[in-house]
């Protein structure tokens, strides 16, 4: 199964695509990190794949 994540460029915290898609734009959950992370920051191919297979990433 393809696993899609985004790594915060500032603190290295890794966030799964299902979290980014749900929040759309979110403050990095890393401790004390002010970076803003967004689903749109994922590469286009990754976003498309995630949205096409969205139900596989839900519980």
């Amino acid at each position, binding site marked *: 199964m393809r696993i899609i994540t985004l790594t915060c460029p500032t603190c290295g915290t890794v966030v799964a695509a299902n979290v980014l898609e749900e929040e759309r734009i979110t403050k990095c*959950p890393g*401790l004390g990190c002010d970076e803003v992370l967004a689903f749109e920051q994922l590469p286009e191919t990754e976003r498309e794949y995630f949205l096409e297979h969205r139900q596989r990433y839900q519980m």
Partner: protein
Amino acid sequence: MKGILLSGGTGSRLRPITHTGPKQLIPIANKPVLQYVVEDFKEAGITEIGVVLGNKGREAVQKFLGDGSRFGVDITYIVQGNPLGIAHAVGCARDFVDGDDFVVYLGDNLLKQTISPLVESFEEGDYAGGIALQQVPNPERFGVAELDDSGNVERIVEKPDDPESDVVLIGVYVFSPRAFEAIEAIEPSWRGELEITDVFQWLIDDGQRIDSHTVRGWWKDTGKPEDIVEANHLVLEALDATVDGTVADGAETMGRIDLHETATIESGAVVRGPVSIDAGTVIESDAYIGPYTSIGPDSTIRNTHIENSVLVGESTITSNGKIIDSLIGRGAELRSAEDALPEGRRLVVGENSNLRL
């Protein structure tokens, strides 16, 4: 070698305790389960740890572990979000692992033995993975490993009706980066999760070698209240205790008692170890604290008999009764209803509580 500590999950079998916090922070001998795992990693020389967080209890875990410096390790957080299985959690850690070998440790598992022998055994051969095993009397409830004569894993069967072996997988695994190929290749199981057993089976079917190491000491999955009480018993059994607190004249103490420097055992109280009593707690007159009991911080115990139990902390127990084999959550208050009329018990019980009165 890096470490991946899994700290997600809903803790549904530990409700109501987990309504207000993650299961990995429930204390065993006054130390969260998670801390034992971090210390085990460190003892094995693994100080770069990725902590995988779910949707629940994320902030509490981060607040406790911080950046890891308090424990002499370096922590990176990995937010998995939806609980899509252990293999999905591991897959989320791919960037963190960055081509290294790594150990995966379930954050609610406790081992008596350090993971060092498992790691050393893995590093001695050309393995794609390694599993920690333990013999159990009820293998049909676990993932069962079938081994060849050299101890390499030939097959893993999840909860078989008729197990061919009594050695089962416990919550510690070692992997080479080849694991990520397997994770990409496997599909979710019938329950919608990516299963770690499927990762191992894919690697085996791909011709890779999987090492095994049988854990000799005890192992506990602390997923249920009775597991917490039992794990507390096992940890206290080997407790390295020091009485730093105050034991008043007239208090009776026996056995190994770990008493925090700000805790007090007052005159008229009886405490028989092994027992752990945390900061600010007072054991007052006419209280009996029996073996295998841990009492968390800022609690008051009076006129009560407590044995083989875990009190998370900030509790007041003055119930004039016997409490045994119990797990009592933070901030609980148990008082006597003896003089109250009309006669009867008065309860404020949270959802999913379990009481035997």
